């Protein structure tokens, strides 16, 4: 943690632990990823139900949209909102107990304040975007795979 604080200390307001924020962010991302695993689980359960119906000779059209995937991924936008809140908190931090924002606003490096407020939250939002896109694509691919399998079983049932 201290190593992270030293190397990434310039990305957070002075006095805030970068390591702690990164660990919290990683925890949030992990939670969002775990929540999103509901989507393939739901797909697998639906496929299992369909397979059972087909085994009983009931030809039900396999049709499921992507609402369950989007629902399962709500953790990511929630995390993004929390991270936007973190950026606001960083800004507010400079006014807690003093007006350190005056100092930040008169530093020769004009990006210093913006960097210390927004760098980590933006990095977190970026990571959430990338990971959620990858998970979405993987879920869609798994969905299509199961849908094709269900259609093949249905065709077999209908004797096509």
């Amino acid at each position, binding site marked *: 943690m201290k190593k992270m604080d030293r190397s990434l200390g310039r990305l957070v307001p002075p006095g805030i632990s970068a390591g702690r924020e990164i660990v919290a962010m990683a925890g949030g991302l992990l939670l969002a990823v775990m929540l999103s695993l509901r989507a393939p689980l739901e797909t697998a359960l639906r496929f299992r139900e369909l397979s059972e119906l087909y085994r009983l000779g009931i030809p039900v059209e396999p049709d499921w949209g992507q609402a369950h995937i989007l629902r399962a991924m709500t953790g990511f936008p929630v995390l993004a909102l929390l991270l936007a809140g973190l950026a606001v908190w960083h800004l507010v931090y400079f006014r807690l107990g*003093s*007006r*350190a924002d*005056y*100092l930040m606003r*008169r530093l*020769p490096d004009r990006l210093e304040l913006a960097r210390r407020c927004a760098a980590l939250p933006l990095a977190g939002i970026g990571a959430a975007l990338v990971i959620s896109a990858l998970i979405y694509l993987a879920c869609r691919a798994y969905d299509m795979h199961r849908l094709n399998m269900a259609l093949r079983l249905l065709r077999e049932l209908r004797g096509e």
Partner: protein
Amino acid sequence: MLEIKNVSLRYGTKKALDGVTVSFAPGQIVGLLGENGAGKTSLLKAILGLLPFSGEVLLDGESVTRRNIARLSFATCEHSFFPSLTPRAHRDFYAQHFPGFLDRRFQALMDFFALPDSRPVRALSAGQKNQFEVILALSQGADYILMDEPFAGNDIFNREDFYKVLLGILEPGETVILSTHLIQEIRDFVSRAVLIRGGRIVGDLETDELEESGTDLVEAVKASYGYEPDRAARALDSLTGRQGEGQS
């Protein structure tokens, strides 16, 4: 030379500065004097670009931008340090951001005021916090050191000590603009007094000239402000009804 040209500033509909024009030459200790709400803080914040204003602030002929802003430092009674950082961490932060940071001066002033180096600044007393704020402004390596009521809450001995240190440590090219209403305290330390009232400059007095003419700074300030010495007596008379009694 720090030049303020026709600077005006508003808070909503209220005019805080009204066409202020004044300049500060290198090597002066200037008292920026005025009552509460006169516009002292607004003027200092306008110089630093912390408040939006109309007009011009020029530093050796150039607008104040990120390129030259390190030539200005600021000590405010609102404090601009990081409460959770130690003085040592502040020193590192300043050294990182201000190329002209005066490490030796910082250490000397820390020693003089006997401030602890490794305790978070929030744990210091109110007076120590003021001292630390001023130490940072003096150690930044700026040419123009702006101070806004920096000793609010400090005892008189502390302030006296500080004025003496200030006179002793300043380099010839360094300018201090000290906003205060403690006129009597600073009269022996300032070389010039700029008086502000209602957002306008109402007086600009060189202490040398005052000395030559045998005028006391406090009296000159009172005169510039149109101070009426018998105002309190008149108010008391009117409150107690003595005036009426006298007339009857």
